[in-house]
């Protein structure tokens, strides 16, 4: 499999062509916007928490390349129904897959269990070979992170 095919796996193209949870949510849903300053990609994350504290609804807006769009789409599917803590754990696993260590943490490859947990998202691992695309793959996650912070701070 060439690097290019490894990057653009079928499942990625599928999410790109038919993005899950595309759209907007009205307030009281929380909204966060993320920009990739390098290429102009934009992701908007709309987030609603249910009474049980889990993510009851999430919608994705904005425009971007196949990697940023599919990654956000997969993310939305993966975090729906999860608590903010669980969503953040998933984010850390995903960033591990992207070879990104959070400040002060050791870089850790995700364990097989974590990869199973990532599901479709694991298909994005080919991105690692294209460092500038890592920012595309993580844009949605960073925007989700902001939305979760906004929720926690009640802003």
């Amino acid at each position, binding site marked *: 499999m*060439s*690097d*290019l095919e490894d*990057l*653009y796996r079928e499942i990625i*193209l599928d999410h790109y*062509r038919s993005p899950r949870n595309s759209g907007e949510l009205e307030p009281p849903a929380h909204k966060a916007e993320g920009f990739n300053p*390098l*290429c*102009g*990609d*934009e992701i908007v994350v709309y987030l609603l928490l249910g009474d049980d504290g889990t993510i009851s609804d999430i919608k994705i807006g904005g*425009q*971007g*390349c*196949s*990697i*940023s*769009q599919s990654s956000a789409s997969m993310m939305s599917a993966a975090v729906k129904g999860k608590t903010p803590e669980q969503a953040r754990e998933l984010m850390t696993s995903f960033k591990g897959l992207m070879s990104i260590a959070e400040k002060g943490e050791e870089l850790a490859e995700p364990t097989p269990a974590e990869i199973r947990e990532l599901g479709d998202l694991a298909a994005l691992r080919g991105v690692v070979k*294209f460092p500038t*695309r890592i920012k*595309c793959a993580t844009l949605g996650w960073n925007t989700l992170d902001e939305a979760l912070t906004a929720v926690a701070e009640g802003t």
Partner: protein
Amino acid sequence: MSPGPDFAALKKDFPILATERHGKPLVFLDSAASSQRPTQVLDAMDYSYNNAYANVHRGVYGLAEAATNAYESARLKVARFIGAPDSSEIIFTKNATESLNLVAASWGRANLGPSDAIVLTVMEHHANIVPWQMLQAEKGFEIRWIPLGDDGKLDLSNIDTLLDGAKLLSFATMSNVLGTINPVEQLVKAARKAGAVVCLDACQSVPHMPTNVADMDADFVAFSGHKMLGPSGIGVLWGRMELLEAMPPFLGGGGMISHVTTEGFMPDAVPSKFEAGTPPIVEAVGLGAAIDYLEAIGMENIRQHEIELTAYAQRTLKEKLGDAITIHGPSEPSERGGVLSIELQGVHAHDISQVLDSHGVAVRPGHHCAKPLMQELGVNATARASFYLYNDTSDVDALADALAEALSFFAI
């Protein structure tokens, strides 16, 4: 293709163009971001470092004199190259961005107040927007925008109203996204009528066509060395002497003073006043060598070559990709530079560039540091292919083939 110089033979002067990507010959189509450079330029810089290097201006020993002469000859070359009446009007900066910031921070901070207005165009590069917005936050003047019209050109129908009472008009001679060559003469005339100072962001035109700042009748002209076969790390600001003399210094430090005490300082004469600290000495030498190279070919010839290549590209891409491709900017090649911003149906610019790279073709995706223009165009990214003297029809063919591949790769 064109009479005159043998453009096909130039490629061999650029060692990087003989390298490969993924086993395919490199097809470099990103000169609008930064050009490559010929051996002659690198040789001139290595010669300087190995034979005539010392800090400039402040030494009397032979090496310092040789370095100073080399640095000042570069200033003379730049002056001649752009038709500056006086070589002291050439200020070396680190890039065009610094040149434009210099105009904003020095001329602008001294001349703009809350009741003033300046005029920009919506097709400006961030380098000609953000410095003004930063100053606006401090001084509170109005920024007016010349809008986009048809066929990737400016809409000048309200130009006199926009310029009415404005203190400055600053615009790009050529858009780095659309390739549009803006009507400098018409715009400068309108600005003069309104009594506005004129600043030109000439980053995209100086490398690609003859430039004469005196004929253009501007007050400031900014451009970068790295887009015109020169090294990274050097830019130029040309300014009209009366203005430069009246302006306060920009950065403070060694080389820009005539006297300093603990009480205060007296600035030196122009251009030293604006060249604080150790300048890009060998970068200036490299830029001088780049100018020698460009002049040997002839700027008219380069312009002609790029018009022909652009026409060929427009034709070829349309033939090969039909309705799936959109090429932004003026349709008439003589009204534009060799900068093609491309959209491909169903394929994001980022993905185009990625697939093209796997075919050895280097094009740049993104907003090209012109977000207000992108918003105007209603796109968040384009894939930009840009030409220079070392490109030829084979590069265009490779681009067309690779775009076709990208289209089929992402086809549903």
